């Protein structure tokens, strides 16, 4: 890899030990996939949950702190493994909390914006079209690449904070024009897509695409950013989709041909029948199994999604013995408080949680055996962490299951 004089200065330790370590990792990984050079990135989004980072993650971040590291570009952080305010309510073991706190301290000392959100593109970290960024968090990566048209690979833990400390990443993969072209066409022949259909469509596209880039035809022009968020999260968790194009909607498929003038390698028509089949397949529980917990907010809820839940919840309260947990960003929670839509739900028995989510927190201490959710990502990821059965259903069904008229 050809390095600039400044990059060599990082490597040789002229900017301190933390940046030397970060640059050594960036160069090593860049060389491993044959990158020609490093490129500047305008923002970074890092991982920060103890449940996956383990002691090794703490070790690396603390090493960077003791080496004097500071972020050079705006950097946000993914949700934590605990709710920092309500960890006792959620029965998080104290030792686990303390480990996450160590991570938190290290992350904040490095100058990371303490967003603890998987939707940094809603606020605090909003790239422009065409900008190179280095993001971790699969659902945010797919949103940045697809909906915004910014550019990022699937940046793994370790490389993420190294990019933040140096403002650099190796130029490979989705940073290059030629690797952003779609090759698979999905033709959606369904007229009345509802909210649950988007994550389900995502799961179909993700599970069929492998490492190829899907192009989606047939999404309505009225599709909301929240719906695209849930579609992308489904696609990224059911497969490894880091970029999709939606014809007429996402920027690289609105102003240019996402196939680059070529014919798609494959065309797949998606009908209502396939959607129903995938929806049923995501559910692993049988209807007779009692549901212990209903959860929403993976990815974390936006204020618009929160408002919709509030209106559906009027005059209802959480059933005795049932847990109804809603995960949202701190910003959504604060906005919801100002709108007066948080307290009524809290007094009707809903547990809100901020800056974390069910998918990455130690929910297993509760011993739930059957969880219901409207999130495809949560449904696909949670069983591997918590050994629970899942029922996947829309928001109305989740609310009907968790609550009753009062």
């Amino acid at each position, binding site marked *: 890899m050809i390095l600039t004089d400044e990059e060599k200065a990082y490597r040789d330790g002229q900017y301190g030990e933390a940046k030397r370590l970060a640059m050594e990792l960036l160069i*090593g*990984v860049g060389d491993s996939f044959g990158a020609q050079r490093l490129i500047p990135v305008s923002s970074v989004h890092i991982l920060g949950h103890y449940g996956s980072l383990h002691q090794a*993650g703490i*070790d690396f971040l603390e090493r960077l702190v003791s080496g004097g590291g500071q972020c050079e570009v705006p950097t946000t952080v993914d949700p934590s493994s605990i709710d920092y305010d309500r960890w006792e309510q959620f029965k998080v073991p104290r030792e686990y909390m303390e480990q996450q706190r160590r991570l938190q301290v290290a992350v904040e000392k490095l100058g990371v914006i303490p967003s603890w959100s998987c939707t940094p593109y809603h606020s605090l970290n909003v790239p422009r079209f065409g900008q190179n960024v280095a993001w971790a968090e699969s659902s945010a990566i797919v949103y940045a690449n697809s909906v915004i048209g910014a550019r990022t690979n*699937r940046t793994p*833990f370790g*490389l*993420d904070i190294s990019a933040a400390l140096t403002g650099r990443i190796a130029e490979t993969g989705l940073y290059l024009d030629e690797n952003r072209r779609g090759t698979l066409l999905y033709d959606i022949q369904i007229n009345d897509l509802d909210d649950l259909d988007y994550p389900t469509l995502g799961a179909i596209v993700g599970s069929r695409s492998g490492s190829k880039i899907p192009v989606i035809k047939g999404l309505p022009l009225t599709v909301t950013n929240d719906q695209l968020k849930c579609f992308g999260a489904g696609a990224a968790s059911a497969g*490894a989709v880091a970029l999709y194009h939606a014809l007429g909607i996402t920027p690289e498929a609105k102003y240019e041909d996402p196939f680059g003038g070529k014919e798609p390698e494959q065309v797949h028509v998606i009908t209502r029948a396939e959607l129903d089949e995938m929806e049923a397949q995501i559910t692993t529980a049988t209807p007779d199994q009692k549901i212990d917990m209903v959860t929403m907010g993976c990815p974390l809820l936006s204020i618009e999604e929160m408002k919709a839940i509030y209106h559906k919840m009027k005059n209802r309260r959480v059933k005795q013995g049932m847990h109804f947990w809603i995960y949202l960003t701190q910003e959504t929670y604060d906005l919801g408080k100002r709108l007066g839509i948080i307290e009524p739900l809290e007094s009707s028995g809903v547990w809100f949680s901020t800056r974390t989510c069910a998918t990455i927190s130690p929910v297993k201490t509760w011993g739930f055996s059957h969880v219901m959710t409207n999130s495809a990502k949560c449904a696909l990821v949670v069983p591997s962490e918590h050994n629970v059965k899942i029922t996947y259903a829309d928001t109305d069904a989740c609310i009907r299951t968790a609550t009753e008229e009062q």
Partner: protein
Amino acid sequence: MSEKRTIRGRGVTPGSATGEAVVSEAAFMFAHGVEPKNGDVIDIRSPLLGENVKGKVLIFPFGKGSTTGSAWFLEAIRQGNGPCAVINVETEPIIATALILGRLLYDRRIPLVDRLEADILTVARKGDTITVNGDTGEVAIVS
């Protein structure tokens, strides 16, 4: 048992190690895929489910799964439960990041070799003794 032979490839991380081969023909993941406490493969979709990677020469086409995989792998390395060497068809950043950090943080040199001149997934068999040299990029099937 495979025939004794030496295969040339590309050394990605330095060091040399000899161990018993475990081979996954499918892409392999560490996030919720390998338990760092003991090196057991826990990914229910992996053909290596129930095997253990500690001290082995771990062979798979490429990494897959969550971007947290590098932390899961690094934690296994930290606890001394990682493989002694890795061979990929084509490596990717999750695997490379974990192995480079293993050396930088814990001084554990786990060689990684990829882009071999023969199809390692069919040449190497479970139980073969293999030496992996990350400095020269050579993989030797010893017995």
